[in-house]
Each structure stands twice: as structure tokens, then as C-alpha cells.
């Protein structure tokens, strides 16, 4: 965990929210927009510390709600719950495996909207729900599942390309050098 990784996580969350609001291609084709915040939260929960997870929940939730008709702050708790639960069990998760990333991405993408809608309904709001919501959930889950390993690879690539790479130590030791010739 380093500063670059933290910056990358927040930049990705910001761009993800912006992209979801600006590029409606998926919505046109599939009738639903895929939310990338749960996938980014999965990455943060597995690779960053608890303060990054908490801050991502706060800022990601606020950015998302600010462009949406959601009441401000409604997405914070669902993101935090998902991130926190993964964070607590992260030592037991094989985070390098794409299969684990896909499953975590799918579960996170399913849980976050459900919790958000539950909070909305508890608060007396009337979101647009119907049988079509099942299809939208399916698209979001599949989209989130596909996006998670891609995001993991992207983050790794960015870190490799932009981050400081420590120089590998050589096996050369001057005291073990074989000197030839006369002293």
C-alpha cells in the first residue's frame, strides 16, 4: 500500500462515477448502467488499509449521489459495509486469483444496489422498481463481475508503470570476489 495506490483508487472512483453519468451506451444496449464503485471497493478492501476503504465509501458515495436523484449520502453505508466485510476477511481470500475477483465483484455489485434501495425505501422514497429491476440487477452483477479482474489488472499495470520500482539486489559481494593474478 502506497500513496500512488491510494491516489489511483480515488481517481478511478471519480472517473467511474463520471463515466456512468456521461456515457449511456450500456444503458441504451442493455437497459441498465453498470456501477463500478463496488468493484473498486473490492480492490481497495483487498489491497489498501481501512482508512482508504472508509474514505472511498464516503467520497465514492457522495460523488455518486451528487449526480443522481438519490438523497445525498445514501450510497455511503452500502459501500462501507461491503468494503468492511471484505477487509475483515481479506487474509483468507485468494486475491490474486481472477475467479475470486470475479465472485467478489459479482457479490459486491449485487449487495450495494440492494442495500441502497433498502435504505431508500426505509427513508420513504419511491425508487423506480418493477420486474425490469431484476434484469437491471443481472446486468449490474455481470458487469461488476467482469469489471473487477479488469480493474485489478489495470491498477497493477498503473502501479507498475507509474510507481517507484525498487532495484533488485545483486548477488555480487566484493568480499567474495575471486581475485586473479598477483597481489
Amino acid at each position, binding site marked *: 500500500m502506497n500513496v500512488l495506490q491510494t491516489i489511483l483508487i480515488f481517481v478511478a472512483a471519480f472517473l467511474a*462515477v463520471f463515466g456512468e*453519468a456521461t456515457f449511456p451506451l450500456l444503458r441504451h444496449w442493455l437497459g441498465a448502467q453498470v456501477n463500478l464503485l463496488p468493484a473498486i471497493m473490492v480492490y481497495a478492501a483487498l489491497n489498501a488499509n481501512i482508512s482508504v476503504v472508509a474514505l472511498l465509501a464516503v467520497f465514492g458515495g457522495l460523488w455518486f449521489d*451528487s*449526480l*443522481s*436523484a438519490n438523497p445525498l449520502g445514501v450510497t455511503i453505508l452500502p459501500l462501507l459495509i461491503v468494503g468492511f466485510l471484505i477487509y475483515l476477511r481479506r487474509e483468507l481470500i485468494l486475491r490474486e486469483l481472477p475467479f475470486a475477483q470475479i465472485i467478489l465483484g459479482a457479490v459486491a455489485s449485487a449487495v450495494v444496489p440492494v442495500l441502497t434501495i433498502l435504505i431508500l425505501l426505509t427513508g420513504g422514497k419511491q425508487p423506480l422498481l418493477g420486474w*425490469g429491476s431484476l434484469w*437491471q440487477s443481472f446486468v449490474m452483477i455481470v458487469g461488476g463481475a467482469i469489471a473487477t479482474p479488469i480493474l485489478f489488472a489495470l491498477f497493477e499495470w498503473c502501479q507498475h508503470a507509474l510507481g517507484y520500482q525498487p532495484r533488485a539486489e545483486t548477488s555480487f559481494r566484493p568480499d567474495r570476489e575471486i581475485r586473479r593474478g598477483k597481489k
Partner: protein
Amino acid sequence: MFKQKHYLALGAVTLAALLIFSLPPRATSRLKLAISSLFLPLFGLVHTAQQLPADLADSVLPRRELLKEIYNLRRENEQLHVQELQAVATGRENDQLRSLLAWQKQTPWKLKLANVIARDPANWWRTIQIDLGSRDGLKENLPVLTSDGLVGRVSSVGFTRSQVILLGDPNCKASALVENPAHDMGVISASGPLDTSLAELSYLSGSANLKSGQSVVTSGLGGIFPKGIPIGQIVDARPVEFGLYSEARVKLSANLGALEQVWVLFP
């Protein structure tokens, strides 16, 4: 498993979320606009990037094509000018007749063009953001339309942009009138989450004689939408609550899924 640091983070975020929830609506609305203004440079960037191909295409368009287009536009402009003269004369006559009957004078529509800059990222709302705000004179609840028909109403206004709730969202209801001999009236309300081209027309009388293809326009009741703005056409109708009242599906005239520019109607 649970360290003190974890408790602190969990507690702090929960507290922050509860604090934001408990803010008064006005403060929340301002905070929301302030946070979303962080995205403004990116919106500008996307707009410029979208304009670039059009500008490039314009710059390589042959002069002959441009002259032809100017000629066509001039002709169209002259035709519209003649029609406007006719409309002004009709309006004047209408005003005179209204004053003879002691009816209130009709005010002409004032329209302002706005670009759609963002859509709601959540699947359970139907809203868009437009690039007009309080500096352009926008206020809450102003009707928004396209040349095809009604789109929705302004729900919150920032300095440079505003949020518009679209027809079909649970928070956008409009009193509507069916253009049939009985002039049946109902309320346009939310439809399903998938199809943005349909809305529900509810609270119609049980004896309403609705047929597919009949036009639906705003009734002027409710004080938000002026009378006569096209909404759509009846697709089908069905009795509800043992025929106590009827409901109909309306195919919206405006294509809400592909909005790029909209008109804001000023009173």
C-alpha cells in the same frame, strides 16, 4: 479480527453518513450541487471532445454545399417569417376575443435551449443534468420539453447547471388530457424501470373511451405544465379496481433515451 482502528473507521463513516442524512433539504441540495460541481471540468472536456468531429467536418465541407444550405435555410426562414406574421395576427385576434369575454390574456412561451450533460448513474431514477442554472434564470419546477413533446421538469437548480426529472420517474407527475370527444383526464406517472419510452396514465374515469393512437397532452392543471404540450399517444388501456377507474400506457412523444438538447420553458 476487530481492532480499535476498525471500530473508529466504521463509527466515523456511519456518523458522517447519518450527519449528512439529517441535514435540512436545502443544505443537502446545496451540498449536492457543490460536490457535483467537481465534475464540471470533465463535462466541459467531454462537450469539447464531442464538438471536435463536428467542427472538423464543418471545416472540410465544400463551399457549394454550404451555399446550398444557406439558400435552403433562407427559404425556410422566409416561410417561417410569413407563418409568424399569420400567428401574430391570430394571436392578436385571440387576445381581442379573450378581452371581450373577460378571459385572462395568454402569455407566449419563452424558451431557452439547454444541453444535456449527464444522466442519472443510478438505475432506479430517471433524471438528467442540463447546462443551464440560476445564472440563466432557471427556477425549480420549470417545464422541460423537446420539439417532439414534454420531457419533464426542473427539480433542482445550481449556478451553472440543473437537474431535470424526466417523465416516468416516480417524482414527476403531470396532469394529462386525452384528445378524445370526452376529453378524459388522468395523471402521467411512473412506468417500468426498463422502457424509457412508456409512461403510465392513471386515475382515468372508469367510463373513459380510450383507443390506441389517441393523443395525450398536458391539461394545464397542477400549475407546473402549461396546457397543450404533447406528451404522447395511448398504447393500450385497462380497467383497474373492478372498473372503478382506468389506466393506460402512453408512448411518449419525446425520445427520453436519446436526449441531447432540450428546451426549458419560462412562464
